[in-house]
């Protein structure tokens, strides 16, 4: 309506002052679009919080009936007898917890060297097209459905373990840990590679100019500088292992057992819930006990993810 003249500092008017004043409360389409988009984005952001709280409230409500009533903390964490359908049901989750922990532990033994090695290769050594192709392949690997991994455990790893180690059953800690390790490795690789990439190139240049070899640069400069991101990658892998259900159900043998070697079959917390929940009456003691396992899993994965998140934030602050 007016053109501001910078030199003289005056507004060149194209209408009377009254006309211009009357325009000040005008709202055009862009104003409404802006408001609408703001509201939508707000809804999207808040829904994440609403859902996670909703899930927490739901499983707590379902599990709480058990915790308040039949629940015996010594039995739950100290006994290996998980017999919810027996005449006198017992709910000892120790074997399940140890099962999950042993499978996840072995998975990390497999995944950590694999994923860190892959991340270092992709981030520090691979050049140009090799690097791009590898990154895409790793991301594709992360997208393989877990039931497919379980199938590989069942149909390939199982006979292979029986033949290689001469054991009666190939569905055990070794099988499921290995499968889970391969499953967790891609996401760990991606996060680890991101944290290596975040290390400023001036560090590498400085070290190389001092006469460091490629490996010395990586070991003494890049890895220490990316340490937080690497720890976070491992923690997220652990969280992934803890929560994985289908592949573990298919490859672990699913028998309640305190494992004494990697060739023992075990049963995981997640697999127990998946296998039994459909068989229980809604609201029954067994049903609620399974939800208590769910609360336990939720709390553990929450703590692991939160730690990973805090560790990642630690990097940004620096």
């Amino acid at each position, binding site marked *: 309506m007016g053109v501001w003249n910078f030199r003289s500092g005056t507004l060149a008017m194209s209408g009377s002052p009254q006309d211009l004043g009357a325009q000040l409360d005008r709202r055009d389409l862009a104003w409404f679009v802006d408001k609408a988009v703001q509201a939508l984005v707000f809804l999207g952001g808040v829904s994440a919080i609403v859902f996670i709280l909703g899930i927490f409230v739901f499983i707590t409500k379902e599990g709480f009936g058990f915790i308040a009533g039949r629940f015996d903390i010594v039995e739950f964490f100290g006994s290996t007898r998980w017999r919810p359908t027996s005449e006198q049901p017992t709910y000892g989750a120790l074997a399940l917890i140890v099962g999950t922990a042993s499978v996840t532990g072995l998975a990390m033994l497999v995944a950590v060297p694999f994923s860190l090695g892959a991340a270092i290769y992709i981030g520090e050594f691979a*050049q140009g097209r090799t690097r791009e192709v590898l990154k895409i392949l790793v991301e594709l690997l992360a997208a393989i459905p877990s039931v497919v991994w379980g199938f590989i455990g069942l149909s390939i790893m199982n006979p292979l373990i029986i033949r290689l180690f001469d054991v009666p059953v190939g569905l055990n800690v070794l099988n499921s840990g290995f499968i889970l390790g391969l499953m967790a490795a891609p996401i760990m690789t991606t996060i680890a590679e991101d944290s290596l990439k975040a290390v400023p190139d*001036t*560090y*590498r*240049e*400085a*070290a*190389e*100019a*001092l*006469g*460091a*070899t490629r490996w*010395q640069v990586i070991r*003494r*400069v890049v890895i*220490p*500088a990316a340490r937080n991101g690497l720890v976070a990658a491992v923690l997220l892998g652990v969280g992934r292992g803890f929560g994985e259900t289908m592949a573990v159900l298919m490859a672990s043998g699913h028998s309640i057992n305190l494992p004494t070697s990697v060739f023992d079959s075990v049963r995981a917390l997640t697999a127990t819930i998946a296998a039994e929940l459909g068989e229980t009456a809604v609201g029954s003691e067994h049903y609620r006990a399974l939800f208590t396992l769910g609360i336990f899993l939720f709390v553990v994965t929450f703590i692991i993810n939160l730690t990973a998140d805090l560790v990642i934030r630690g990097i940004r602050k620096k």
Partner: protein
Amino acid sequence: MASAGPARAIVTRKLNLWYGTFQALFDVDLAVRAGIITSMIGPSGCGKSTFLRSINRINERLGYVRTTGSIEVMERDVYAPEVELLQVRKLVGMVFQRPNPLPLSIRDNILFGHRLHRGSQKVTRSREDEILESALTQVLLWDTVKDHLDRPAVDLSLEEQQKLCIARLLPVKPTVLLMDEPCSALDPKGTEAVEELIWELRGDYTILIVTHNMAQARRASEECIFMLLGRVIEHTATEDMFVAPVRQETADYIEGRYG
């Protein structure tokens, strides 16, 4: 050190350099005298930094750099096939435009190069402390940092960081120091302090310093090289260049007619 070695620390012959298809250096023939400070001036993009970065072959990190001709450092061609890159880097230290301390403590920064090159040889803590003190004393930083050697080096001021970056080269015992606009990130006071330090180091090291700042070249160097569009235009004693330049381009640049 300088008296025992050759009179020329760096000699290049017909040095041409390409970044991909872009030619950045054209037939550069230079002989840099040992034990003095030589400055390189010229407008942005004239190839000063490129030349500097090809001497310790740090340019090769880019992967698409091609060179022809030769660069001799202490009478050895550093581009010869049998030459070990790490030994080149040991002989030729480099200071960068922005101070780039490693994300380690002050102590670990100073000892970084030394630890790389001593191999499996055991060095006692007290020997390390001596190296540390001597390096930091030489760059006039010892009194400032001696009480917090375990603090991260990045917490220092930019001036102190740049001094630290010079100090960490010394335990490696280089012969040549390349400095790529070492004061451009510093304030005038820091510039003065670092210049003074560079001046102190001359004689023990052959120093080749790239600068945008002509006053700095004039104050802080004994010989001066003027480059333009990838070619060496003039190389004389600094006082001659600034008082009586031979070439017209040099005179134009020094008088600020371009650049």
